[in-house]
């Protein structure tokens, strides 16, 4: 008998209904720097996240799998008694699904792959690359007292690449990469992505030139744009709407963005590296359009807030890193601008004006996710009308993400994925006309 069955049985013995969401997570981690594997580790996590319901109350406990089931259920019932009345019980059709994931072990890094990465991180005369690789295999079981018994397995690999180049100045450019397996990730890193990142770092290591005049044409690299746009993650949920902390709170159909901009949450999109069949409440994953051609379409909802808002669930009930009770967040927020891609060089040729390409941002995580106000330190490349490209460092960039939504007209076609807490955000580089650039 599995541990989840022990939990359900213990709840039954206490006259309670239970749901058990179990996570078996196996992780490997490598830190590779200067041609050496500096750190290597393996971690195993088996957690059971239990909700017990008695009458109209529900309590949650997250524990290591194997903890005394009776005591876990007792603790959940104790919590239930201190919380306000819970949402009505989630009614799901009892079903048993074993959605077996990929058969190849996505956490396995073949010796030749490791050697390739070690070789990539060899220090050069003026630079170094540090790679922090993390691969994980997740097996999820969701079962309840009504006979629900679902399982899936998935893999995810991530790398943080920190490129340092010592030129006229020292430049460091850090970026996170994601793929469904460590093998895929190795291929991604070695097929040009790291080289492109290194090239940007090399350009930033040249002596910085002053930004003598204000620049009207500003292109925000996808690496920066995806971070700025991640400010919307907490604002697109029905909880934010009901709690009056979303600046998107408007009637459905209201124009909240440029007519060229569409935003959707879709973990099934090929841009999302993490494939799961249903959210942490068992609701199947589907594409949820949030903004279409600038018009507000809907908000994300989990079970609790779907009831409060009187809408349907959108497959957006996700647990936190520690297995916390499900709350609303996007799985993979996708920003699409409906216009032909315009690179910095294209704009320069077309408009005959200098272009500031912001390629690095520091401090974005401190922005205000209620008001949407942000300001960050930035570095960029200035494309002059005479064809020169100079480096500008020590910039500050300030703006508001809702102004950005309203004014985005063009993009550069270079999609970049970012992870904001546990949500993915994908955006191309965007042309912005509402930023205050200071130096």
């Amino acid at each position, binding site marked *: 008998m599995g541990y989840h069955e022990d939990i359900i049985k213990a709840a039954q013995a206490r006259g309670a209904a239970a749901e058990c969401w179990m996570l078996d997570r196996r992780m490997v981690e490598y830190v590779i720097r200067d041609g050496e594997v500096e750190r290597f580790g393996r971690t195993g996590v088996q957690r059971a996240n239990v909700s017990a319901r008695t009458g109209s109350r529900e309590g949650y406990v997250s524990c290591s799998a194997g903890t005394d089931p009776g005591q876990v259920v007792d603790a959940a019932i104790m919590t239930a008694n201190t919380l306000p009345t819970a949402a009505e019980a989630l009614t799901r059709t009892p079903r048993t699904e074993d959605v077996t994931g990929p058969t190849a072990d996505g956490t396995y890094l073949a010796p030749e792959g490791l050697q390739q990465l070690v070789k990539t991180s060899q220090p050069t005369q003026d630079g170094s690359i540090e790679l922090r690789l993390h691969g994980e295999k997740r097996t999820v079981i969701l079962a309840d007292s009504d006979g629900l018994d679902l399982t899936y397995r998935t893999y995810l690999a991530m790398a943080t690449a920190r490129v340092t180049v010592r030129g006229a100045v020292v430049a460091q450019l850090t970026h996170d990469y994601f793929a469904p397996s460590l093998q895929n990730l190795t291929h991604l890193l070695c097929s040009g992505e790291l080289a492109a990142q290194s090239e940007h770092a090399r350009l930033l290591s040249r002596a910085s030139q002053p930004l003598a005049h204000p620049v009207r044409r500003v292109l925000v690299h996808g690496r920066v744009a995806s971070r700025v746009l991640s400010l919307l993650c907490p604002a697109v949920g029905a909880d934010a709407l009901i709690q009056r902390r979303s600046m998107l709170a408007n009637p459905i159909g209201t124009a909240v963005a440029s007519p060229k901009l569409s935003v959707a949450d879709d973990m099934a999109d090929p841009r999302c590296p993490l494939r799961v069949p249903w959210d942490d409440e068992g609701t199947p994953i589907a594409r949820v359009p949030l903004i279409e051609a600038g018009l507000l379409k809907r908000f994300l909802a989990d079970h609790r807030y779907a009831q409060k808002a009187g809408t349907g669930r959108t497959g957006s009930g996700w647990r936190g890193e520690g297995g916390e009770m499900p709350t609303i967040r996007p799985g993979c927020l996708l920003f699409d601008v409906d216009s032909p891609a315009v690179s910095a060089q294209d704009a320069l040729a077309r408009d005959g004006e200098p272009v500031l390409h912001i390629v690095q941002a520091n401090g974005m995580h401190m922005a205000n996710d209620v008001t949407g106000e942000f300001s960050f330190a930035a570095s960029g490349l200035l494309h002059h009308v005479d064809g020169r490209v100079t480096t500008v460092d020590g910039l500050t960039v300030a703006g508001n993400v809702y102004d950005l939504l309203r004014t985005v007209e063009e993009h550069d076609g270079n999609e970049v994925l970012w992870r904001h807490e546990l949500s993915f955000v994908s955006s191309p580089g965007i042309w912005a006309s509402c930023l*205050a650039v200071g130096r």
Partner: protein
Amino acid sequence: MDRDGQAELELCGSLLSELQKSWRSDWRSATAAVDVGSTIRGRFVDSEIDDLTLHTSRHSAVRAVTDAGLAFSADTRPTSDLVGRLPGVANDRLPPAARAAFSAAPGSTGFSVLADSFPIGDVQQWLRRADESARSYDPRVQQLIAEFDVVRRDIWIGVCGGDVVRDDRSLAYIVLRVIARHNGKVATGFYTPGVKGSIDNLDPIDAGREVAKRAVAGLQARPAPTGRFPVVIGGGRGIVLLHEACCHPLEGDEVLRRSVYSGQLGRVVAADRVTIVDDPSIPDAVGSYEIDDEGVQAQRTVLVDEGVLAGYLTDRETSHRLGLVSSGNGRCNSALHPPLPRMSNTCLMAGASDPADIIAATELGIYAEHVGGGEVVEVTGQFVFRVTNGYLIEDGKIGDPISETTISGTGTEVLRGIDFVGNDSRVGAARCGKFGQWVPVGVVGPTLRVSSLLVGGTRS
């Protein structure tokens, strides 16, 4: 956890014994760790708890430092395979049956939940009082959102060749945000009260009033200017500036990566009025501990002594590679994560200036009364931090509030540019993230002024 932690002591001892039996010639030190925690975590909004989860966990880990770096293995189950998963050990030592057992479904861990270890009623009461206090401060306060972590945690650490020691890591950390609205304008207040030990040691009335005050002040804010200004920074949480700008590059792993302070020991790096200390013994500060997460006795480390660079922050791995003795700063989020060199409580020693005199000496500048978080590029020392409540200083007086903004610069210009250090030291709490691991850190110090920093303005 049993009441006296005997089971954890024995588990840590048995892991240590496994490590000793498996000792490899390339290991320089090896540690075993067990941590046990119960946490109340959730969110309070609309005057009631919106979500709440009780967490209970027991993690165990083994780690070995080699000349090349660190190998580690950790699990939520007390498995004897833990040592076997370290590189170079598994296939040599473990019998096939033991490896098969590892892949089997989990059995009982023998770990139990002590329901009375969760003081939910106390937490609920605290949040309600803070909420009432915030809402009664001003009718323009519309919402108080609190994210809370109330943690009871103990760790047991054993070092090969030594004993198993135990340390208490209990703390309460609350992130409070208030949303205020008036005539269509929205402003937020941000405050992070935290304390080592029980939530009873935090005053909910003060906390609620303080965060409401910050939000309401924001309603009158005018756009922040852009450009270089003298910046006066409030004490306590304001020391995040030094945490980001100056102290991250002093962490051993960053020193190994040639941070801006690598190879600078003994050199003048700051104004002579600047003394910065990492001190894990500050009473009630959230970054305090007696033993670090690698079993090294916590100690006060002078980082900058009257302007001279005096020390680095190291864990076992980086101290070995730098040829130093560990400063007792090996910290991790839990035993599931590998230790990294981290700050405990970053302290700027108090100076002689009255804070009012510092303001009076500033003709035109910014007063950063409260700050959010920050970020630094260690190799260059370039940093940025967020001013959540700021004011213009005009003619030596505090003037209008300004919108949230960012201040940036380099650590070296901050340290050399500190021209006033106040006499009003305060203790603040923050959380610091590094390579995906968050740990509580204290920020302790007085009001200070930096003669010139780049203020990032507000949207056009």
